[in-house]
Structures are given as structure tokens and as C-alpha cells.
């Protein structure tokens, strides 16, 4: 919990620094926001996919007979989470 608050405070500080830029550098803001958006999307997507794979592997270890069905379910779940990160990539590409 403390780490989350520290992270939020640092992000607010960084955004206040960004707002203190001179007007000439306004053209670089979309690039920076694209980078942040993609980083957040990929990071959270990585966490979610890691959780999915972890439970799939544990399930396969507990019940090797169901490994085929578990693998199929894992792949479908990974594809769904991957799509969420790809929506953000789409916004990045459409914004340019």
C-alpha cells in the first residue's frame, strides 16, 4: 500500500513538472503520453497474463490428465488479455 502511494506521489510530481514546460514543446506531449499509456497497458497486461499462466501451470501440475483442456483454456485467456494491451497500441498508432 505504501509503495502504491509513493508511486502515485512520484507520478503527480512528474506531471506537475510536465505542465511547467515552455509552450514550444507542446508537440512532444502526444509522444510522451503514448509512451506512458503503452507502458501502463503492457505492465498490467504482463501481470494479468502472469497470473493466468501461474494458475494454469499449477492446475496442470495437480492434475496432469487435464493438461490438454487447461492448456487450451490458458491460451484463450492469454489471447483475451493480449487484446486489451493491443487496444492501447491501436490508439498509439492511430494518434500518430
Amino acid at each position, binding site marked *: 500500500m505504501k509503495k502504491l502511494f509513493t508511486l502515485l506521489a512520484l507520478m503527480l510530481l512528474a506531471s506537475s513538472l510536465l505542465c511547467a514546460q515552455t509552450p514550444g514543446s507542446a508537440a512532444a506531449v502526444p509522444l510522451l503520453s503514448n509512451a506512458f499509456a503503452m507502458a501502463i497497458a503492457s505492465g498490467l497486461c504482463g501481470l494479468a497474463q502472469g497470473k493466468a499462466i501461474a494458475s494454469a501451470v499449477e492446475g496442470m501440475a495437480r492434475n496432469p490428465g487435464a493438461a490438454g483442456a487447461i492448456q487450451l483454456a490458458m*491460451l*484463450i485467456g492469454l*489471447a*483475451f488479455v*493480449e*487484446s486489451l494491451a*493491443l*487496444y492501447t*497500441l*491501436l490508439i498509439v*498508432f492511430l494518434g500518430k
Partner: protein
Amino acid sequence: MPESELWITRIFNDYLPGLGNRALELVGMHPEPRPWADFVVMQIVVVVSLMVVFAVLRRRLSPDRPGGLQHTFEMFYEFVRGQAEGQIGHEGTRYVVFFGTIFIFILTCNLIGLVPAFESPTGNPSVTCGCAIATFLYYNLLGVQTHGLKYILHFMGPKWWLAPLMFPIEIVSHIARPLSLTIRLYANMFAGEQVTLVFLRMTYFLVPVVFMGLHVFVGAVQAYIFMLLTMSYVGGSVAHEH
């Protein structure tokens, strides 16, 4: 800006501009000098090649000595039918026609982009939107066909007094379905193409092949997911409760 065209699109635009313009006028758009777009021509190529494959398969179907082509398509059919029965239950077999068509069409559209000098039509949002709208119309019309006008009760929720709350929520969730189908398929194909291009720009030789291999896998998985979601929606709309 002069846009680059595929060689097939150039053939269509050089020899058949009148046909393209007549199709554009049918939907109320203005005629253009080069009416055929890449994704339209590629869809026609996919459809014609699938029809040729199925025509050849039809002639070679035999119960005594099945050939390789028959085994492949029997595998496809068993796969689609098994999934339909798993998702919808016993009545799923009636709708295998649509599911199989969607699966094979989207799979072929995704994979044809890897062949040199061709482009994935599903890398264009119009194509994926067309498939999503077809699915949307299909499951809603099936619901009306199965339940009659009582299909509207599906949107009302479990209790009658929840209906004013449930109806807008259900409408929004039903509109979100073709939207998410469109964007999911389009983003996956578009991102796969862009990632290959970026790596091609950085390392001019052989490294993008890895991404093309990943694109084969992603294309197959996305076609399967589109079919799976279609089955899930159809199952939800034809379900006979109590």
C-alpha cells in the same frame, strides 16, 4: 498522396473500374478513378480461392477411400461441431454452418497476409466490422426466430421490476459485443503487421520471420476466439430457460 496497390488491385482497377463504380453508386457513394480498394479485392480473392478448394473437395469426397483433403476438412468440421456442442448444447449442430464459415473465412483472411504480394483484408477495420455485424445480426435474428417477440424479455433481466434498470445495461452490453469483436480482430492483425514492419526497418534480414511465425499463431487463435464468442452469443440468445 499516391497510395501503393497490390498487383491484383491494379489489375482490377485497370480493367474493371466500371464495375467498381457501379457498386459504389449502389450504396450512394461517388464514382472514383480507381474504385477497387486493396481489402475489397483481397476478400474477393479469399472467397474465390475458398470456393475453388471446396469445389475440389466436393468432387473428391468418398466414404471408402478418403484423401488428405477430406481428412483435413473432416478435422475442421469435427472441431467446429465439438465446440458448438460444448458451448450451446445439443442444438448447436444446427448452427455449425455459420460458425464454420466465419472460422474458415477469418482464418484464411488472417493467413493470406503472410503470402508475399498479398495483404490481410482483416487488417482493415471495415472487414472485421462486417464480420462482427454479420454475427450480431445472426444471433439476434436467431433469438427472434427461436423465441418470437418474447426475445425482448431476454433484455429485461430476471425480475419484472428490474427491467427499467436492466434494459439500458443490456442494450449497452449488446452494442459492445460487435464493437469488441471488430477491434479485437483488427488490432491483433494490424499490430502483427506493424511489429513485423518495425523490425524489418531495424534489422533488414531474417529477424521479422520470427514475428511472422507469431502472426500465424495469433491469426489462428483470433479466428478461433471470434468463432467461440459467436457461439457464446448464439448460445445466450437461443437458450431455453426453465
